[in-house]
């Protein structure tokens, strides 16, 4: 009888995630203290946790770490995605401090849940095993379901939470079923060993169905057509700061995990999934942009726009290789700053004591609050892809990778889509700069933290637009170990 050998427990690769989780636990503890006021302290603790995780992530750059029998792989790829997630979480926290207080929804649990979902996202990007992947996905999603329903008094918020939960549960079960089938086909859940097991026989039906179901789950989390139905309702109904987090952080994490599964476990079947993603990308871009044109609610419009942007990122995935994967990572970074900024402006605007969510609410914003209007205009221009802002460079790299890989027509569809998108983004600019308000004008809901978040996002989109080279190099270096 052999002795049971305890595997070495290496907590190093988990450090960033543990920092976030620890901060979450601390927030819950502090919330129990009997002082009636001072939820800002909790916000500050949460932010400190995120910043700590960001610093820990940056400090680990270049040091690849594996733990728990390769279940957690904290390589440069995971680190890059973690940086994006940390930025998303930090911006969302800054935006929420005054926003949740104004909405009378302030609670300690809010900050704790944001931290838990962030931890889930970070773990998702580092998952080297389908079991950890599922675990992280659930940690992320369950927290987000609750956060989406934070405004318990608002019908739309509860509806968003319910829809997100039910559809999310469906997606999770698809994914779990896919993982089970994959295990049945290959005898392992580890991504590397899956690739080795199916080498040369990637058309094994059990494996194909398993991975197909897994991709359905990813399609849901990355809001790709035809699994995008939940996006508009949830984005519209959820509190705006939570919407910002769903749109940026959870999307970054899902794309991170998707890239890892595709490039590691499904390396052998690349032509197959490339053809599939080609179609999904075209559908996602087109449906997102066409539906966005018809929206009069700004949050709903940004929801459809985020679907469209997922489509652009899929174009980068189709292109594949180091330049394709790197361009998607860079795109995630630019998209996070831009989208968080756009939602951020929404959290700072109110009209007639309610949140300004209709596009029409923004009429005349440029005259009353020129700085806020200019900020939103810049974020929207970056979403269109107007140089020299970050969104343009992101698109440029994605499309460049696609053309170099020979996907010329896919690129043509993508650029025509981005020209189409200019219409609905500019419509908001039209209201802000070229229309007069009818009735009560939109006002600025003062928030120092929110303003700080906007400044960070603005600096981000300008810096990434003017000096993208170092960040692109990092993104490509991050993908390099995956594609080899």
């Amino acid at each position, binding site marked *: 009888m052999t002795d049971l050998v305890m595997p070495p427990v290496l907590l190093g690769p988990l450090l960033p995630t543990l920092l976030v989780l620890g901060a979450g636990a601390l927030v819950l503890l502090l919330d129990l203290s009997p002082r009636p006021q001072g939820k800002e302290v909790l916000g500050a603790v949460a932010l400190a946790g995120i910043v700590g995780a960001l610093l820990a992530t940056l400090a680990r750059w270049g040091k690849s770490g594996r733990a728990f029998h390769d279940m957690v792989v904290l390589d440069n790829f995971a680190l890059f995605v973690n940086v994006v997630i940390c930025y998303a979480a930090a911006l969302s926290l800054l935006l929420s401090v005054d926003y949740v207080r104004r909405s009378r929804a302030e609670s300690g649990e809010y900050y704790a849940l944001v931290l838990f979902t962030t931890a889930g996202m970070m773990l998702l990007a580092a998952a080297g095993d389908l079991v950890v992947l599922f675990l992280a996905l659930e940690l992320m999603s369950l927290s987000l379901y609750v956060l989406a329903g934070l405004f318990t008094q608002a019908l739309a918020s509860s509806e968003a939470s319910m829809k997100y939960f039910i559809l999310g549960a469906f997606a999770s079960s698809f994914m779990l079923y896919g993982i089970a089938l994959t295990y049945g086909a290959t005898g392992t859940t580890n991504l590397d060993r899956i690739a080795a097991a199916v080498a040369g026989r990637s058309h094994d039906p059990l494996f194909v169905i398993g991975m197909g179901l897994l991709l359905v789950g990813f399609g849901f989390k990355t809001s790709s057509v035809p699994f995008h139905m939940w996006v508009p309702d949830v984005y519209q109904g959820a509190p705006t700061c939570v919407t910002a987090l769903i749109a940026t952080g959870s999307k970054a994490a899902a794309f991170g995990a998707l890239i890892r599964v595709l490039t590691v476990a499904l390396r052998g079947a690349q032509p197959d999934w490339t053809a599939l993603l080609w179609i999904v990308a075209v559908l996602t871009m087109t449906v997102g942009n066409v539906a966005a044109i018809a929206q009069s609610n700004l949050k709903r419009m940004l929801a459809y726009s985020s679907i469209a942007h997922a489509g652009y990122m899929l174009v980068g995935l189709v292109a594949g290789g180091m330049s394709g994967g790197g361009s998607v990572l860079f795109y995630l970074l630019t998209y996070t700053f831009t989208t968080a900024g756009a939602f951020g402006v929404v959290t700072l605007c109110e009209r007639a004591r309610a949140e300004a969510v209709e596009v029409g609410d923004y009429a005349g914003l*440029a*005259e009353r609050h*020129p700085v806020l209007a200019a900020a939103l205009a810049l974020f929207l*221009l970056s979403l269109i892809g*107007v*140089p*020299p802002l970050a969104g*343009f460079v992101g698109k*440029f*790299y994605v*499309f*460049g990778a696609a*053309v*170099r890989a020979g996907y*010329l027509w896919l*690129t*043509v569809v993508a*650029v*025509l889509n*981005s*020209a189409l998108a*200019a*219409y609905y983004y*500019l*419509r908001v600019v*039209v209201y802000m*700069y*070229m229309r007069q308000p009818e009735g009560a004008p939109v006002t600025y809901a003062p928030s120092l933290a929110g303003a700080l978040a906007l400044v960070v996002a603005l600096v981000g989109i300008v810096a990434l637009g003017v000096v*993208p*080279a170092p960040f*692109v*190099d990092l993104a*490509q270096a991050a993908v390099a170990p995956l594609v080899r």
Partner: protein
Amino acid sequence: MRLTAVTFLPALGALVLLLVPRRAASVFKLGGLVVTLVTLLAAVPLYVGFDDRVADVQFEEVRPWMPGVGISYHLGVDGISLLLVLLTTFLMPVALASAWHAIEDRWKEFVVTMLILETGMVGVFVSLDLFLFYVFWEAMLIPMYFIIGVWGGTKRVYAAIKFVLYTMVGSVLMLVAILALYAQHGAATGTYTFDLPVLTRWVLPPGLAQELMFLAFALAFAIKVPLFPFHTWLPDAHVEAPTAGSVILAGVLLKMGTYGFLRFCLPLFPDASLVFGPLVVALAVIGIVYGAWVSTVQPDMKKLVAYSSVSHLGFVILGIFTLTPQGLVGGVLQMVNHGLSTGALFLLVGMVYERRHTRLIADFGGLWSVAPAFSSLFLVVALSSLGLPGLNGFVGEFLILVGAFQTNPWVAALATSGVIFAAVYLLWLCQRVIFGAVTHEANRGLRDLSPREWTLLVPVVVLIVWIGVYPSALTGKTEATIEALLAQVQSKANAQRVSVGPPPVAPAVRPLNGMRDDMWTAAGSRLVSGHPPTHSGSPRASDALRLRTTTPAPRTPLP
């Protein structure tokens, strides 16, 4: 550093003005004027220091920007872009000064937007890296969108959106073509770069790929020019834009399209340019005639001038695609001429609109007796626009027609009818607005030009006359560049022919000596002697090109 200075001075000024609190509009009016004038002053030494004996790019600046993908910050001017940079920096202070009273609110935003626009426009003309060029090309759209949409007329939002969407659809396809060219060049040579001179030296194999790339570039430029049938955004944008916007739109923005054809389409895709040349020429001629006809029936002065741009820009495109030295030089000169003449027409229409708040021709008549100074300047500018000898428009149109006549007399004949129609609509306009008896009582008390209006019109009129009398001041700077450009197109087209067909019999490239100093006389003598060089039945366009560009130019002085 000089080009960087000229390009980014306006943006710097915009940044400084952004920090000034918005109290007095006059601070921004004066600030904008000072910044644009300083930029003009910084641009003039370029003209003086430009060596017109060499065709090379001058004042070059190269710095790595994104070395990983072969993008550099590469600026430089040659004989073509030099003139357009000067035109841009010259028209900006004029346009700002014209807005003095016309723009009533949000002066801070107006000046900042105009200055950013100037950086974008100059940047387009000086960048020698395809990525950098595209950045400026797209970035410049947004300020123009704001200028039309915020300070425009009643249908301004519609016009602004239409302008942006039209231009954007064209330019995103150009982006794909840029990326495709980059990828193809990289795959063929091993160096991935967006550097224009490097890409230009490389010979892109002829065929479908080159033709598609040409079409993508050409679509972006044709929309900008605008070439018939892509012109429908133009009347809306011009009519709705404020005067300053119209001046810049007509004066500079449209030139980006024609400049693009010269800078990118010809040298990068010579074979496709030859294949599609006849199509482009046909569209240009349709534009010339159609624009002129539509102008004739416009009841609105501004719309008339707007449609006349379609006609005039058709001449420029015609000149470029004759692929003759005369045609190209005329085309480049006509770009400047159109900027000055049409810009001035928009200024004058704007001035009369400020006074009467109408632009309908029917609301005017007999202005000569009320406002003689205004009327005489209006007449001079109209005459320059219709091509009266002695004024600038004549020189450019004449050279273009000479070039066109060498390639196809019928095209030249049709195009010449455009000159006649221009006389019809412009003289008829003058007749109805300026001459005759005063028809409306409201016009009796019309003020004549104010000192401010004098100051901004006189430099334009001086240039109009100066170019008319002494065109070599501009053509001298550009001829060497154009010779080199044509030689390059010719040699690349020939090289492609070598690679796909039988070798050429005659030595392919012959320097176009003799063209520079006696282009005038050569063209004139050919016209006088009545023997246009013939090249009928030439099966390959490159043959035609060789014949055309190496036609002997006898040194016979004009009688």
